[in-house]
């Protein structure tokens, strides 16, 4: 014999969610129970009326604010802008914490802590900390957009800042971006090797008294590097301490040599 009919099965019957065998059993049950059949027929009329009424609502013209293409484009713009603000904020915070903690060492560097080549070392170290571990957007312009990157940097810093070629030492140019500093925009170039080790090279026009500075080493617990200034542009090459202890010094010398040759 057939199973007893549950209330929820009557709804599933109405909504078309029963398998065919059970649907026929329910139909037979309703045929034997006119009161139940009338009730379910009433629900069906109710559903149809509700669908018709709601259908009329859905037919009202879609307002321009709900244009999905436009919304996606707007979201894209917002995300890019947010990323830029977040970058600037992270760098500003990083500078505060590094400066405040006092754990920073700038051996041999001249000038005040946040000015000159020492200041550039701070920004390079903080930028390394923020961007080198980034898997999504380590750079804003990739190597294949080099011309656009260089033009952007020249426009914002007022100077052509060169990205040296470090491939002979095993480091490929990944691309770059602008970063915010106390003294205005600076260029950031990023390099990596086959093992994914990343280096950051910062470049920025220097004020008059810092136009030339000898190479100075800097290091904290995680980041180290070398900074110098030549003919009005300061550079700072930063990387993980493992690299800073060995290869980074010859890399900095190589970068400085290439930059001097191009001038």
């Amino acid at each position, binding site marked *: 014999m057939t199973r007893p009919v549950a*209330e*929820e099965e009557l*709804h*599933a019957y109405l*909504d078309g*969610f029963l398998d065919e065998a059970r649907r026929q059993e329910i139909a037979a049950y309703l045929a034997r129970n006119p009161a139940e059949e009338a*009730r379910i027929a*009433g*629900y069906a009329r*109710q*559903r149809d*009326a*509700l*669908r*018709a*009424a*709601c*259908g*009329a*609502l*859905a*037919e*009202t013209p*879609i*307002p321009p*604010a*709900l244009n*999905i*293409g436009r*919304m*996606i484009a707007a*979201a*894209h713009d917002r*995300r890019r802008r947010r990323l830029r603000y977040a970058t600037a904020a992270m760098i500003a915070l990083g500078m505060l914490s590094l400066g405040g903690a006092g754990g920073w060492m700038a051996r041999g560097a001249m000038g005040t802590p946040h000015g000159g080549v020492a200041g550039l070392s701070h920004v390079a170290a903080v930028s390394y900390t923020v961007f080198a571990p980034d898997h*999504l*957007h380590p750079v804003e312009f990739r190597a294949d957009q080099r011309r656009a990157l260089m033009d952007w940097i020249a426009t914002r810093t007022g100077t052509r800042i060169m990205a040296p070629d470090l491939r002979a030492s095993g480091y490929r140019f990944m691309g770059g971006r602008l970063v915010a500093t106390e003294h205005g925009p600076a260029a950031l170039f990023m390099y990596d090797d086959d093992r994914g080790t990343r280096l950051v090279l910062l470049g920025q026009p220097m004020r008059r008294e810092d136009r030339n500075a000898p190479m100075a080493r800097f290091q904290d617990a995680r980041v180290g590097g070398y900074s110098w200034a030549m003919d009005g542009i300061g550079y700072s090459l930063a990387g993980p301490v493992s690299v800073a202890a060995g290869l980074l010094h010859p890399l900095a010398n190589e970068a400085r040599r290439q930059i001097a040759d191009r001038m």
Partner: protein
Amino acid sequence: MQRVNRDAMTDAAILIEPLIPALRRYAMALLHHRATADDLVQDALERAISRWHQRRSDLDTRAWLFTILHHLAVNRMRQAARRGAHSAIEDVAQVLLAEAPRQEEAMAEADILHAVQALPEEFRAVLLLVSVEGLSYAETARVLGVPLGTIMSRLSRARERLSRKMEAGHRAPAIALRRVK
């Protein structure tokens, strides 16, 4: 990376766009106010775009969008209730009545929407998702974040209550639509 994002966003546009009329329909029927409903749909779409990667699969897009929209709608209704705001009951009826040639039909449609509006919010949501949007019971349970058994009992009670309201409405027609001159 950017190329990947842009392709994902093209998918988003393709999958979301056909669902917008249904989302608006649900929001309007649930809230009974067109401008608020469109606001909510806009919020929901913005969230969907920013959380696109959180979907389980393309197949799931519809229930996922309804889930986002429903959460926003519930928050909005509770805020309105706390502020003691009175929902504009005439508003949706006016949307329907705006089409002059179908006045009588529109009156009947406004009637049933008004009766639905008088149901408790949780009954209204189940009824609209199942009867109008054609979501499965399991999808409805997911959208509303309640167990399947709760969906079934709410559906049964919502249909029963709406039937009684409609019968009462037939005995005393269209009081709800009397407009103040």
